[in-house]
């Protein structure tokens, strides 16, 4: 572990975040978009843990705990929303969900 620096972990977190962001931007399936959003959150937690470890403080790690809690709640509500949406519109493709525009 002596050779792995803070920058390496942050790089991994950043790349994960960028992959997630790209997914959010290009994918049409709302479920996949949602997974990509979760990926971005996870990337953020990774960065927090890295900071926490390299600064020798506990706060970042505790914060990750809260992020996981919030993410779990968010997933539950978000998926319920998607299901409700699907019930009404019969689709989860984001490009077909443009009722407000017409």
């Amino acid at each position, binding site marked *: *572990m*002596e050779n*792995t*620096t803070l*920058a*390496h*972990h942050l*790089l*991994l977190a950043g*790349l*994960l*975040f*960028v*992959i997630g*962001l*790209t*997914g959010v931007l290009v*994918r049409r*399936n709302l*479920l*996949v978009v949602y*997974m*990509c959003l*979760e*990926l971005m959150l*996870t990337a953020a*937690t*990774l960065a927090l*843990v890295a900071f*926490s*470890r*390299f600064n*020798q*403080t*506990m*706060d970042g*790690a*505790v914060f*990750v*705990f*809260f992020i*996981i*809690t*919030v993410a*779990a*709640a*968010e*997933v*539950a*509500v978000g*998926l*319920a*929303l998607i*299901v*409700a949406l*699907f019930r*009404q519109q019969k*689709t*989860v*493709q984001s490009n077909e969900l443009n009722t407000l525009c017409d």
Partner: protein
Amino acid sequence: MPDGLFIFFAALTLGAASLLVLSRNAVTSAMGMILTLVGVAADFFLLDAYFLGVLQVLVYAGAVMVLFLFIIMLLSDSGESSTAYPWKQATLGLAIFFFLAAGVFWLFLWSGALPHTAAGATPPELSANPGEFTTSAKSFGRLLYTKYLLPLQISGFLLLVALVGVVSLSKEPKNEVP
């Protein structure tokens, strides 16, 4: 040069994440997501955050992804895979990815904003100082119930609100519009 385990898990994580974004089948995407989460959990282990790693696997890879898979099965929507592969989308996505990734590389490796510090001494298993980084779950508990007591309460309340919200959202509407 970082050590082997880190390289292995980083590659696994990034590869699985790419699978998540690139696959046209939602179930495959979900599998990629699980693998990514396991990779991140492994990275947590490498960072000596064992408790968080276990939590990540339990909550994310366990509970959340099961929920995802369940919803995917429920909706069983395969609209995307029936059409031709969207090359235009993919190219746009790749362009965005490379642009942003270049930004990340610049920021973390070459801009000099970060010090190239290696990890400090191996963290103690338990420390008398509540703020110090330790490997045990006990120090989480100690901080959660002292410094972060109010956020803890609030997040508990948030979970309750989410629970109620989900119940009310997933109730069958009484007079559904055909």
